């Protein structure tokens, strides 16, 4: 099952299970979504539950929030260009960020629990390929820094199904960060995950690969890179444990710390910018809770601290590659201890 099919089936099942769930966004109906995630849904649920909107992100986000205030369960899609070209979700959600941060995230709190906002904001996030600075940005850290929001980021088809269903059923606003380059990828899916009652817990990470020498944390597309890196490392006798975060907020600190206590080494991987990034948060958590267990400085692998360049050669250098993860893990493993003594 591809990630696209997984997302589509999750939407379909949740819409059929709960008539209050509806989808809105640019080109989600007639065009079936820029990435065909909403394929067949207009036909099945009609134009009242699959709404094409004008190009007014702030507008339809606000409308979605209002609908959620009043008891509906909107799924707001931030579109992209067609087919497999451009990632605009982040950019578009930024047009709408006031509604996401100041309305969706805070209303439950400000209304003393009287106005909940069961809404999902979803769409592709992060870097695609060859689309430059304004189309290539990871918003995980942005949204994850905001209390009141939940931030999920699936990697596999099972993640996509289980997490999207969880997001739609959740009473709180959820930012759901997909990745364009994963839509077409196929993953095996268990029978259990195919069941329409399937759902994953929000706030739980998944250990994708067990290991004992070094912990690698990643989310979304970078999980695949981390697994590839682990494969390469295993040939050199390094047994890496790969954690798929799944949930960026809440962050599964206990799974991460338990793993680091076992491996004593940590590499964090993300596509976003390094400063105040997801890796920075994970690193802090480990320093706070498992400092004594660390045998090496934490390695952060992140995107370069610059807007994304377009030229293919520069772009390649600005986003993390499998080799970067491999080398970071090796550094973490081969270092002498303690570090400071070397100064």
């Amino acid at each position, binding site marked *: 099952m591809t990630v696209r099919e997984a997302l589509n089936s999750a939407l379909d099942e949740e819409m059929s299970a709960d008539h209050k769930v509806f989808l809105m966004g*640019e*080109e989600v109906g*007639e*065009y079936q979504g820029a990435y065909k995630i909403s394929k067949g849904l*207009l036909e099945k649920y009609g134009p*009242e539950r699959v*709404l094409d*909107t*004008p*190009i*007014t*992100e702030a*507008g339809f986000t606000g409308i979605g929030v209002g*609908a959620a205030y*009043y*008891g*509906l369960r909107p799924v707001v899609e931030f579109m992209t*260009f*067609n*087919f*497999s*070209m*451009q990632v605009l979700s982040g950019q578009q959600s*930024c*047009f709408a960020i006031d509604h996401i941060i100041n309305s969706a995230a805070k209303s439950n709190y400000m209304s003393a629990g009287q106005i909940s906002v069961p809404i999902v904001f979803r769409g592709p996030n992060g870097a695609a*390929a*060859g*689309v*430059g600075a*304004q*189309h290539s940005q990871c918003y995980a850290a942005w949204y994850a820094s905001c209390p009141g929001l939940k931030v999920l980021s699936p990697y596999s088809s099972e993640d996509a199904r289980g997490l999207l269903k969880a997001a739609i059923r959740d009473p709180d606003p959820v930012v759901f960060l997909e990745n364009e380059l994963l839509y077409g990828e196929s993953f095996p899916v268990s029978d259990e995950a195919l069941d329409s009652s399937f759902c994953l817990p929000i706030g739980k990470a998944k250990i994708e690969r067990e290991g004992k020498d070094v912990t690698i944390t990643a989310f979304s597309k970078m999980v695949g890179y981390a697994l590839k890196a682990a494969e390469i490392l295993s040939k050199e006798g390094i047994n890496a444990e790969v954690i798929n975060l799944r949930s960026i907020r809440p962050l599964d600190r206990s799974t991460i710390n338990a793993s680091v206590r076992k491996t004593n080494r940590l590499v964090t991987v993300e596509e976003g910018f390094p*400063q105040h990034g997801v890796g920075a948060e994970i690193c802090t958590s480990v320093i706070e809770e498992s400092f004594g267990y660390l045998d*090496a400085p934490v*390695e*952060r*692998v*992140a*995107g*370069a*601290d*610059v*807007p994304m*360049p*377009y*030229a*293919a*050669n*520069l772009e*390649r*250098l600005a*986003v993390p590659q499998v080799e970067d993860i491999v*080398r970071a893990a*090796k*550094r973490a493993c*081969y270092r*002498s201890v303690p*570090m*400071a003594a*070397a*100064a």
Partner: protein
Amino acid sequence: MAIWLLARSRTIIQRLPKMMPCFGVLYHSSSSFHYSASPSSSFLMSHGPRRLTSGTTPFFFFFSRPESTKAHTQLEQLYTSEDDDDQAIDFPGGKVAYTCEMRFISESAEKRVPCYRVLDDNGELVSHSNHVQVSKEMGVKMYTNMVTLQIMDSVFYELQRQGRISFYVTSMGEEAVNIASAAALSAHDVILPQYREPGVLLWRGFTLEDFANQLMGNKADFGKGRQMPIHYGSNSLNYFTVSSPIATQLPQAAGVAYSLKMDAKNACAVTYFGDGSTSEGDFHAALNFAAVMEAPVIFFCRNNGWAISTPVQEQFRSDGIVVKGQGYGIRGIRVDGNDALAVYSAVHTAREMAITESRPILIEALTYRAGHHSTSDDSTKYRPIHEIEYWKMTRNPVNRFKKWVEKNGWWEDKDEVELRSSVKKQLLEAIRVAEKTEKPSVEEIFNDVYDQLPSNLEEQERLLRQAIHNHPEDYPSDVPSRRHFPPISVPEEYAEDIFSVSSNCSPSANGWRERDSY
């Protein structure tokens, strides 16, 4: 609970047949746009030169504004005819008359705002047409630029299909909008484009080589390979770099215009945008601010009927864009975007008004996106082929203008053959060279993030170079380097530890923290 928000009443099945007449069949029907050969353009004359405001326009004898829209007359009637004259309220903004009639203003005028044109589909001047004169030199230059743009589009589009560039957007069908509007401006006017106006840049002297370099993202690109294809820009040509998020250029244009006004420049700002972009809040903020700040800016809307797969009827329910100007107190005109002379005249006149009267002007050009939205799109999936064909053939703006220059005796078949072959040759050569030109060098990743390279980026660059040096096999081979950093040299036995320490100290983690020495 019923979902009434934005709900559309039709299903796909109902919708497709409805969409079809939107543009393709128009020309047979009389219900909506009047593009066909009816001589209705004499509306300008028949209504006479009434004026909306006291600001007059003494500079063009030919000028008379088509302000007599139905909406306008209705509004006037509503507020004047049966009003209780001695009963008026003095209100900020002027006196408002009282009326005892409870009457709601209609959501739309009975008739759509007419569309100004000069040439009919056969390139004939329509009778009574008033327009700005175009000299032979200007006419020929406009035509050759339109053809160049056409050829550029077909060659670059093909280049993308061959996988040699990642993305492309054509301006097919909008050649007149591009070139004629550019021709009517001065080089000092500042352009804030969307992405479908490369013709303006072409007109201003951006060379085929410049275009090719940008698309290839090589080191000769003015944008240093930072921006995706078609995001051209040129400081020297007063053309702001294309920005991907739509409509952001609109409020910015009002800002630029305000600054031109403060500097008392004899220039205006001109910003282009599609019909879809008018749904963004930025459009509305821009119009309102420009009006209030009395900023000399031309808002040029290319209403090409589609925003990717969204037709205008799904985008707004007003009579297009031009009527929105009035809501903000902005003067506007609707023009046939496939008539180069009409576009030229309207922009020329708008420019004079904008600058001498210090005011924004809204122009809505009715045209058609004859190509796909971009190379990521297949528009035959959502619009009928006959509609596309109709606009490509019958309403083709380049053919129409060609007929006119030919009739003037300014252009012959042999000129055409010569032009096409020389442009093509020059273009292919430009591409060949651009493709072979080196890519931007490593330091271009870091330059210009800030005005001065800060120490953390300097550090990153050093680490990156070290990593490339240590692991050349992991990096692309086409990364030239200009800036010279001395390599970090440390005795072999300390290397590991020193790298570790520096990594602890470095606040800026990144993908290439290269301190390993194995």
